[in-house]
């Protein structure tokens, strides 16, 4: 099961959309950096039931904590969980453009 990491805003870049088009059953999505702005929209309808994480420090930096906690299917994780996700999943695909 793939861990997909997206670090671009879905309002500026097609990285998230490209990622979602390459999502397989059981894959996991992690939003980091400007990727957390995906919380401001409805981008996850294409992957119902998928586990979606966002990085705590990037969420806090961008004032997205309230938006994150309002999304029941999104879990805010710390850096240690980030590392754990990387050990628990393979391959790891970064969508950075």
């Amino acid at each position, binding site marked *: 099961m793939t861990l997909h990491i997206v670090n671009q805003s879905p309002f500026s870049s097609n990285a998230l959309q490209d990622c979602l088009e390459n999502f397989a059953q059981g894959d996991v999505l992690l939003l980091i950096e400007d990727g957390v702005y995906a919380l401001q929209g409805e981008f996850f309808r294409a992957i119902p039931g998928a586990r979606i994480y966002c990085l705590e*420090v990037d969420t806090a930096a961008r004032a997205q904590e309230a938006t994150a906690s309002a999304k029941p299917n999104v879990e805010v994780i710390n850096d240690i969980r980030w*590392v754990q996700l990387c050990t628990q999943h393979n391959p790891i695909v970064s969508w950075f453009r």
Partner: protein
Amino acid sequence: MKFSLAVYSAPYSAQSASSALRFARVLLAQGHEIYRVFFYCDGVQNGNSLTAPPQDETDLIAQWQELQRRYHLDLVICIAAAQRRGVLSEREAKRLEKPAANLADGFELAGLGQLVDAVAHSERLVTFGG
């Protein structure tokens, strides 16, 4: 677990360069091994010793160097990408007849083969770009 990182972004210009450093720190603190950090594309600027951020901003180059000393990290900068972007060792500067060198201590220049080798010898590869 044995990780390698691929870093494609310049420090300061993109956050992903600093995310890579943070991720590396947490990896090591959690007892994982870093086989190699390979700096490619604009990521080669992470080894530019002339970077001089204001004192109240993070000095990523210094922090990579500190991590390198502490954990004996293998910090490899792609030599071809570095030449095109003006990051040279003493030896390269001499060979290319350039007036100065700016490769930071703790980093070394090597070919793309080191990325291929990292892929072959690591259980996980995490890429930082953007």
